[in-house]
């Protein structure tokens, strides 16, 4: 699969992202851990990218490996912004060579919109649908925007992962008042 293509080291991966996106890339961090008696190393790369370049960064990732593996996207409510973190991994299939790449992107709460990556990684659909219902973000161009985990009669405008007034706190405190 990786025929003819050189595998990059974690530093080279970060550099290639920096060269490509310059100031749009922030807070890059390479996390190295060793495991077992043989002290083998594994690497997690973390980086934050401006939302305007997010989709291009996934495209760039797809040039490093034809099908980057998307494990899941997780999210945080940071107060004024919503942070989405996409957990990718590349170079799987190479013993001890897999590198996790976590790309985070912050969206303002006033306009929480981001482009879909389903056209690059079709397997991203379920996780994108989940982010829509749980965090109230809008994924532009998503092929299927229905809910996944929330029931159809779950109230509109309540997002279970939010920590502000649109969060589920009210429903939890007054469970008996929630309309069935």
């Amino acid at each position, binding site marked *: 699969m990786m025929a003819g293509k050189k595998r990059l080291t974690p530093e080279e991966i970060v550099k290639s992202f920096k060269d490509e996106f310059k100031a749009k890339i922030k807070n890059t961090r390479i996390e190295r851990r060793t*495991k077992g008696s043989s002290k083998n190393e594994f690497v997690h790369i973390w980086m934050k990218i401006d939302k305007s370049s997010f989709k291009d960064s996934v495209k760039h990732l797809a040039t490093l490996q*034809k099908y980057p593996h998307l*494990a*899941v996207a997780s999210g945080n409510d940071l107060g004024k912004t919503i942070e989405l973190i996409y957990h990718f*991994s590349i170079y799987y299939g190479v013993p001890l*060579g897999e590198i996790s790449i976590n790309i985070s992107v912050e969206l303002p709460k006033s306009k929480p919109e981001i482009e879909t990556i389903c056209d690059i990684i079709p397997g991203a659909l379920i996780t994108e649908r989940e982010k829509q219902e749980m965090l109230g973000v809008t994924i532009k161009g998503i092929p299927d925007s229905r809910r996944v985990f929330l029931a159809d009669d779950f109230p509109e405008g309540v997002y279970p992962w939010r920590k502000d007034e649109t969060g589920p706190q009210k429903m939890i405190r007054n469970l008996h008042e929630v309309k069935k």
Partner: protein
Amino acid sequence: MKTKQTTKTTYRIPIGPIHPALKEPVAFEFEIDGERIVDVDVSLGHVHRTVEWAATKRNPIQILYLAERICGICSYCHPAAFALAVENIANIEVPERAEYLRVIHAELERICSHILWAGVAAHEIGFDSVLFLTWQIREKVLDLTEYLTGNRITKGIITIGGVRRDITKEHHPKIFETLNYLKDNFEKLRKVFLDDKTFRMRSQGCGILTKEDALKLCAVGPTARGSGVKKDVRVDQAYFSCADLDIECITPDVLTGEVNGDVYDRIIVRLLEVKQSIDLIEQCIDKMPVGDIVSEPKVAKVLATLKKAGGEGIGRMEAPRGEVIHYVKLVEGEEYPFTWKVRAPTYNNIMPWVPMLKGEQIADIPIVAASTDPCMSCTNRVAIVDSGKKYELNKEELHRRSVEKTRRFMA
């Protein structure tokens, strides 16, 4: 749910939220042309228990036991992935001996899960004597689990920074006895699953997932490996002490020389992984160094350390069904985590169902759906809508159809 446009020749059958294969709720909507499946739509969430939210009201040690209860079969890998994530954040070094013990428990769980699955798969095609054969073997492994951890299912063995019980010399005779029993019976299982004519007829060329689709849809675990994708966290990004052990990624071509990506190939992968797990446990017992089993035995001290830690981390490990990943964010000075995101392997193996089921027959639904070893949770009703005339097809009926298909083959 969005209503799909159907042409005159096809009709739709909703199946679920009762699972046609395993006893857990998930709803399918099939578009059927005669007996052929044209399209599939899956809807989930019937057992969403807001575990992730509940965790934001608990401290990391309490979460271990909450994580254990996410799934009865994977009751080890969820707390383990959580512990890995937290250890990454707080820079906790796990003693070497504990890393080996962790592998032993992970592999014991894999053996249980794969053998349980093999029994369910046999049941789905109406081969119930094999169900009893496999579960009888699994019982021995559960006995060993109980002997080593004190419990059969929710083991409570892992903790942050290590494990809670050691395996000593006194345990060895029972471990070897069980492993030898498994080895003796492995040949029997291999013969039934791989050589039996009925099994081959029902599983070969059925529920095909191509390598391309497996890669595109980010399939994980035996589902991906059955399609020839070499993805195994134990090999690719070794956690615990997996890097010290001799592990190879198992794809069906190691046995048959070719990859078809059908149900049969997924059976091969799981069976060979049982054998691999037995081997790994033996390697661990052989290589295990002496030393501590936990970095800090006092829970209060661990919690104090974690309260001071801040940051985010991920924990990845290979559960029996594939890669499980937990994302944790801790805030300095806070006792409870800010965010905890759990992603179980079935989450990624939902979408591959669509290409697998397309073009198959109704009677194949149970075995194809079961072949990814889905893990959700069940009820007992299926309704078929046939041009406005509605009748119900329950689990027994669906199972009966599957059994009939096997009988037709055998006749």
